[in-house]
């Protein structure tokens, strides 16, 4: 079983997001980065569990500059066997997907796993794009993935419930909560990660299909009104007459 896990780098979850004075750039001063939690906690850990059960290898791949190596090493410390970094500033989603697809095409992976979205641009795009570029089935927002031979049974999130589906390898799947539990790398893993291969591959092409032209603050026009606990009738009145939500 050969598994590829796509990982991305995102600001950590408590980061305050601010912009340059002309609002066209993200202010990255002092930003701390982590591996995108969906990639780390669910996609990577499930890949490792599948490997442990069915034998095989787990490769992590990232499209990004050398500064991403620390996050890639973390993937190795958690348990991936080797890593690939496609050396490029990720521009559009399709650019990133093309790099991943180009690498994956030559390496016959059985399963390509990634998180359901990245917590920066919340695109949820790469999985579907990689699948389309490689002519593979794609299952999004999967909360479980069990393998029997080369047939996988997956649960995926749908509005108000779950869909159960079946697909044969190879396929692409995006992982949501429920797929696995976070693993904290131990000392041995961290030491071993230093010796595992991290191959740097040149990128191919570039594009600017879509670009962020401006950032805006989320409007914070809330001013709070306190209501006495013994006067819920007043709250209901306000919700009806003032907020007009009931």
């Amino acid at each position, binding site marked *: 079983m050969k598994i590829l896990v796509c990982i991305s780098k995102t600001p950590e979850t408590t980061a305050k997001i601010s912009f340059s004075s002309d609002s066209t750039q993200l202010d990255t001063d002092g930003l701390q980065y982590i591996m995108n939690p969906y990639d780390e906690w669910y996609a990577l850990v499930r890949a490792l569990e599948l490997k442990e059960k069915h034998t095989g290898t787990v490769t992590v791949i990232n499209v990004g500059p050398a500064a991403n190596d620390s996050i890639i090493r973390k993937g190795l410390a958690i348990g991936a066997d080797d890593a690939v970094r496609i050396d490029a500033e990720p521009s559009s989603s399709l650019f990133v997907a093309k790099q991943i697809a180009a690498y994956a095409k030559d390496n016959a992976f059985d399963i390509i796993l990634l998180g359901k979205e990245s917590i920066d641009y919340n695109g949820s795009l790469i999985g579907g794009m990689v699948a389309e570029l490689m002519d593979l089935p*794609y299952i999004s927002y999967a909360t479980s993935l069990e393998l029997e031979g080369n047939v996988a049974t997956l649960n995926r*999130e749908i509005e108000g*419930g779950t869909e159960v589906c079946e697909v044969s390898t190879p396929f692409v799947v995006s992982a949501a909560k429920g797929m696995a539990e976070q693993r904290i790398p131990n000392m041995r893993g961290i030491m071993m990660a230093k010796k595992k291969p991290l191959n740097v591959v040149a990128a191919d092409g570039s594009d600017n299909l879509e670009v962020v032209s401006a950032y805006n603050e*989320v409007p914070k026009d*809330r001013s709070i009104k306190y*209501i006495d606990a013994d006067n819920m009738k007043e709250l209901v009145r306000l919700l009806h007459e003032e907020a007009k939500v009931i």
Partner: protein
Amino acid sequence: MVLVFAESPDGKIKKASFEAVTYGKKIASLLGCDCAALIIGQADGSDQLGLYGADKVIQVSNTILDNFDSQTYTATIAQVANNIGAQTIVVGHSSTGRSLVGRLAAKLEAAVISGAKTVPTNDGGFKVAKNVFSGKAIAEFTLNTPMKVISLMGNSIQPEEIGSTVAIEQMDVQVNPGRVTVRERKTVSGTVPLPEAELVVSAGRGMGGPEKWQIIDDLANSLGATTACSRPVADTGWRPHHEHVGQTGVAIRPNLYIAIGISGAIQHLAGVSSSKTIVVINKDAEAPFFKNADYGIVADLFDVVPKLTEAIKEYNSINA
């Protein structure tokens, strides 16, 4: 031409699809073209699509498409787009739409924005905004190619009756059988799924345990609201995972969000702060959530929640 895929899971057009059609019509007006809606298979309610803005409704019926597979659906939508010369494709940012939006963009080499929440403008480029950083900021994207794919975040605009009834045209497409087999769809009936809910009642660790959730359910029932929870509540199994809202859970933007016994951590706020009106119930006056609320009640939740339920019931009986 703008093409909107009006999805009909379980054979019925959803409200989100009417939103998407109204949205598509607004883009068509902006670009000076028509808006077509595509339905696949059975789609009860499709006679309304014209009313909400479709100039044309196209139906594709093919037994292969009875089973949802992102690959066969992408092939179908792309062919229809090609047949009618559509350059902008709109889908809902639903479980179905999220499976399609990336595929479509890759297939058509299109510029893409997923989870869009504003009607595009066309001044110095085709510009659309979406929430980024899980709701901590808004980014305006400029889509630089004639071919564009957009998934529309639910509840971003309301369906508007801006058109009139149109006849449904049948169209044939060539589609190979898919490789994904759907075995079962399990949905909780009777409640509105979280991402689509207009009213949400959410509770956190302040509940102290799963035993007392009845008061939350009672409040939600009195409002016809959907229930949600904070992450630790789902992690410890007090509530099912699909109720977890926030940065690493479901991002929602209901009209009303009532947060009960939730402190208001930044990761929680990220997923709920786009709610129109926020009510916070917490016994700690210093809880950070009060800084992000429209209405606050500093009190013990076990005391105040039943009182709120009573007040809602009274309101319902008067307004019934």
